[in-house]
């Protein structure tokens, strides 16, 4: 696993930017897939906080997708696993997530804790064939992660889907409305921490970020960086 480069002082150094980088002003950023990702937002961050409740912005992390009648075949050609059915996700051995949004739409989310340039090159060099069309989910959607034990309770304030662990465990995926914005919610683990990944329209990213933070406050949660999830921690 590659080490983060911590010599990148500001997200605006990069042309590619998260839609909410300003919301984490003062954070320590690092490079991830050609953009800045918050490494640490406060001095007191810890893995324990993430296990309790925290909100992370992974929008910088590589992601791609395809759809069409031959999308599943294309995925197989890329040596990536196909979730058994729609509305499920699979985590690969390398920590990537494959989302199956329907019978013919697949998203691949890079591992936010490592560089994904190899994956990006691999997918970009595998052009879509007839009946398989690339998707711009890297730029159309923001990617936030709601971590910890309180995640279901937080989502219960924002979303009408039952996301308790017993019914929305790892691998579950819902295309739903969160705080009145269309969103994809994926239940999975990040370095052993149970999380929900929330992918929603990037043009509403600031609104969504603030709605999530607002809901999180009741549980003592706040935004955080990915540093405490890195293997060294």
């Amino acid at each position: 696993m590659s080490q983060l480069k911590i010599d990148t002082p500001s997200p605006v150094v990069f042309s590619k930017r998260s839609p909410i980088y300003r919301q984490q002003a003062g954070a320590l950023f690092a490079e991830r897939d050609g953009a800045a990702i918050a490494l640490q937002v406060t001095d007191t961050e810890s893995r324990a906080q993430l296990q309790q409740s925290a909100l992370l912005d992974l929008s910088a992390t590589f992601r791609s997708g395809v759809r069409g009648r031959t999308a599943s075949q294309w995925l197989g050609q890329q040596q990536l696993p196909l979730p058994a059915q729609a509305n499920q996700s699979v985590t690969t051995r390398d920590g990537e997530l494959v989302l199956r949004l329907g019978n013919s739409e697949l998203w691949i989310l890079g591992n936010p804790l490592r560089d994904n340039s190899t994956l990006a090159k691999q997918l970009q060099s595998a052009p879509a064939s007839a009946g398989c069309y690339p998707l711009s989910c890297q730029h159309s959607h923001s990617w936030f992660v709601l971590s910890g034990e309180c995640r279901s309770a937080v989502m219960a304030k924002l979303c009408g889907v039952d996301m308790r662990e017993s019914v929305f465990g790892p691998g579950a995926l819902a295309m739903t409305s969160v705080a009145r914005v269309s969103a994809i919610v994926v239940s999975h683990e990040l370095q052993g921490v149970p999380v929900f990944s929330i992918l929603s329209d990037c043009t509403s990213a600031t609104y969504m970020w603030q709605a999530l933070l607002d809901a999180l406050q009741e549980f003592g949660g706040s935004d955080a960086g990915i540093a405490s999830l890195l293997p060294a921690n």
Partner: protein
Amino acid sequence: MTSTRLPAPMGLLIDRDQPLGFEFAGQRYQGLAGDSVASALLANQRWLLSRSFKYHRPRGPLTMAGQDANTLVQLPDEPNALADRFPLTAGLRVEGQNYSGSLDNDRGAALGLLGRFLPVGFYYRTFFRPLGVWDQWEKFIRKTAGLGHADLNFKPQYHDKEYRFYDVVVVGAGPAGMQAALTAAAAGVSVLLVEEQSLLGGALSYHQFEADGESTRAQREALITQVENAPNIDVMLNATCNGWFTDNYLPVIQGNRMHKVRARECIVASGAYEQHVVFRNNDLPGILLCSAAERLMSWHAVKPGQRAVVLTGNDEGYSTALMLHAQGVDVAAVVDLRPELHNPVLAQALAGQQIPLMQHSTVFEALATKGNKHIRGVDIRRISGRGQVDSHSTLIDCDLLCMSGGYMPAYQLLCQAGAQLSYSDERCAFSLSKLPDHLHIAGSVNGMHSLDKVLADGVRAATQALVNLGLSDSVAEPVTCDRVVNPEWPIFPHPKGKEFVDFDEDLQAKDIVNATKLGYRDIQLVKRFSTVGMGPSQGRHSALPTARLVADATDRTVTETGVTTARPPFHAEKLAHVAGRIFSPYRQTAMHHRHLEMGAQMMPAGSWQRPAYYGPAVERDRRVQEEAQHVRSKVGVIDVSTLGGIEVRGPDAAEFMNRIYTFAFLKQPVGRTRYAVFTNEQGVVVDDGVASRLAEDHFYVSTTTSGADAVYREMTRWNAQWRLDVDIYNVTSAYAAVNVAGPDARKVMEQLVEDVDLSPEGFPYLAYREGTISGIPARMMRVGFVGELGYEIHVPSSYGEALWDLLLEAGKPWQIRPFGVESQRLLRLEKGHIIVSQDTDGMSHPGEVGLEWAVNRKKPFFVGCRSVDIMMSLPQKRQLVGFRLPADSPRPKEGHLVLRGDDVTGNVTSCEYSSTMGGIIGMAYAAVQDATPGSHIHIRVDGGKSVTAEVVSLPFYDADNARQEL
């Protein structure tokens, strides 16, 4: 003021070590933590809490459970708080409400003397004539009738909502509810137990089901221990299930949050409301329900009086008398409405305590202290017939009268679910039947009135729920209870009246009867005419006596009479609960913060936030003109990321485009753009955009800002029929876009683009190119919306802000400046370009708005083609025209009418002063006869003035399109 409390085990809710000071009606009192405002006041012998709505009669608590309007008080920032529910806090300041003068000396009480002149329906029958009389009285009546006052400086509190999901939800944590929850939980299902009060137990928490109360306490503790130890039971106290909606969707309000609960099975164990007895002065402070006195003692350790009379129509009143006696209250008599003795054991217990029992008798009148401020005694008579009494009177001094006129099931949630209420003459009570699937009923709401039956009914209901969940195959045996707890006719009219049926609305027995005499025989009409049941307690105590009175007066059965419709909410609900945390999503482009940093005035465009112009609002006109002039003379840049973007990909992409849009797209060359007009099936122009052909099988088409979702939806809908081999992908959010426009636009672009030939020949007007801008992948189009050399650049939205920064930096030598939507609107107006939905309406077909050229009449089909053909073959009545006015003319506004004589022929759709054109320019719908350039149209502007504008040909600016094709 002194405060004395009963010893433990009385006082389940209070903490005797935590005194709390507070104020009521300007006087200081002391209560205890765990008190409600009302219990703390009663502990201080303060009984007068409020004044009644109509006659301003003194009122004290009736139920001590938040079920009546007698305890409505004014808090600093909230009127109509229930004093018997609102928890006491240190320093709380409480006032009475609905009085004139002071709560203790209310001048409005004189209205009671005028009662005979204020009959039922007084307002309806009095203030409708002569015409206008209501206007005279309304102010006075509103002032007189208002309850409490709203604090207009109130700072809204945070309220929100939460979704919850359970296998079984039990409403009511009395013995039936707790037993049902435990039975369900034992099968391993998730259970939510909702309780309105602040403690578990329901009647077990205050009522003695046997003479000494010991086994009741033990039973309650055992049930609570089991509930608390059950890991799969969630308990919500102080929580009200405020409605029942289809499929067991239950809004449960607790504190500032509304929980939207989904239950696979729902068990309602909501209990039953103890009823009052209808006799003269039954509303005096010091008269309360038996259960209220028990709550006062058991929950708050408050001794409710020194000398009591108990008036009852069931055995429960006997228990109340014994409990009062045990707590040191001198019980002067138990007055039983029933002719026969039903429970010799309890009667013996009374006798053992030397408590006199008066059978087949009633309180005919409660006697009041001065000003009706408290009860001082009762006039007891033997019952001689239904509602009739002997003339012989027995007077007993007392300061407390506890009454129990039977029970009414808490039917509201169940009736909301469609359950049927039926009245049994034998039991003198209502019962519920015909519940929908997955909704169950248990306990006293189901007519169970002995503890063993109540518990058995809880087991039965839970078992049935488990059967429905597939977790049990037991047969849920029905439970029956033959105890009769309701007296036949606890209503005793008095010649002097003031025997209240509905305390909320000051309605007496004769008011209900008189309503029927006036022809309002239906219970719903009685309600609306008399307002019975329309007060804050929503008929909890008035429904049963009203049904009886109406049935009697109209010679029908009580079942035939029924009760009025129960609708959500069950309890008063704040709008804040309904609203919750208001989610109002907004959309911002990738460059949003750059606009703010540059001083943009933002404007809404649907859910988008867009820069209108840059600079102070007071300089709006000047800034718009400056920005437009800058584009005309140098170069400007505008954020157009809000335009919709849709990709159409696949072998049938060209065919699809050809069917969707009016123009021809089959032969559109790759690398070229084409104007795309979208009409609906009625032939009305509903959207437009620019379609770029990226490849033989790939189009990228823009839409209007507000039309993106609708166009995408229509595209997918149409292709569900057509089954063409295309993929339709809404990429609006995936791309950020700008338009760099002005004579220097190419020079700016040349600073940044190295891999595209930007020369007029290499990248001509209406061409499409792909390249990079400082490494950012970009789609570029030569466009002319504002009428100047222009490049629309679309980049993945993550790069949008960087693109903006690059352009502004690269454009510095040419003084590039941003321009906003207002400026763009002026520029395109000068160029004569329409904005769909601004310059079109729900009737505009292409011919009316000068878009015939964008309609291919040779191709076999496009959406709306038949309608377009029909409308364009009909004689045209109006036409969108350009008009001019001198600079010093009053400026028409959008929407101003175009008149031809007295006839309205159209309206102004766009109008602005143009410094480029040196005058006012605009577009308007005009009669066809006036559409020829050189004609004049008359526009009615502000103030009713009319201005005459000259019709001119469009565009106003650069008619030969030389500038955009540079």
